């Protein structure tokens, strides 16, 4: 089998990512092989607070409010 790829120009403007989590990848470049594995055991009732509190961005706007909800 012949697998031929023509990469013409690649131009990207802006990239905005909130989170890259648990065996994930953000790559700008060429790659041969990617193998990503993840096991997780997270009960539905778990309270999860990630480390990604957006400190110092959008200061002075309502977006700064971080809400965490805890079940009863």
């Amino acid at each position: 089998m012949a697998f031929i790829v023509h990469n013409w120009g690649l131009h990207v403007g802006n990239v905005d990512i909130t989170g890259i989590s648990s065996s994930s990848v953000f790559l700008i470049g060429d790659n041969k092989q990617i193998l990503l594995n993840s096991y997780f055991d997270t009960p539905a009732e778990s309270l999860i607070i990630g480390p990604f509190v957006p400190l110092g961005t959008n200061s002075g706007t309502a977006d700064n409010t971080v809400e965490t909800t805890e079940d009863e």
Partner: protein
Amino acid sequence: MNKRLVKLDDIKIIDVVYGTSFIIGDSHRATPFARVIAIQKEGARFDEEAYSYEQFPLFTRQFKRLPPPGAVNDIHYHHNPTINVGRVRVNGASTSSMIQIGSLDELDADARVKHIRILQDEQEENTGID
């Protein structure tokens, strides 16, 4: 496969935590892994020694592997030698992840995360935590 150059004007990353890498430049192979036992316990006392990875089968079970590479003959023609990106914003990367500006031949990332919550009123009925 010959690699293209990356031209990136601007990047801002807030948080890189728990076995995660941020790499500028080319590399051949990366094998990050993370094992996490995340315990939320109600009450004042917390005994860190009481927990081990061996207690939970999630940390020993096997991952599925890919067949060895090389089965497909691939040819890549890069008509433009650069990848051009303007601005990148990343809030956070966590738990055996990768952010790379540049080429990477092989990536093999493993993450195992076990969440446990120990509540006081549940402990009176049942002492098991698994």
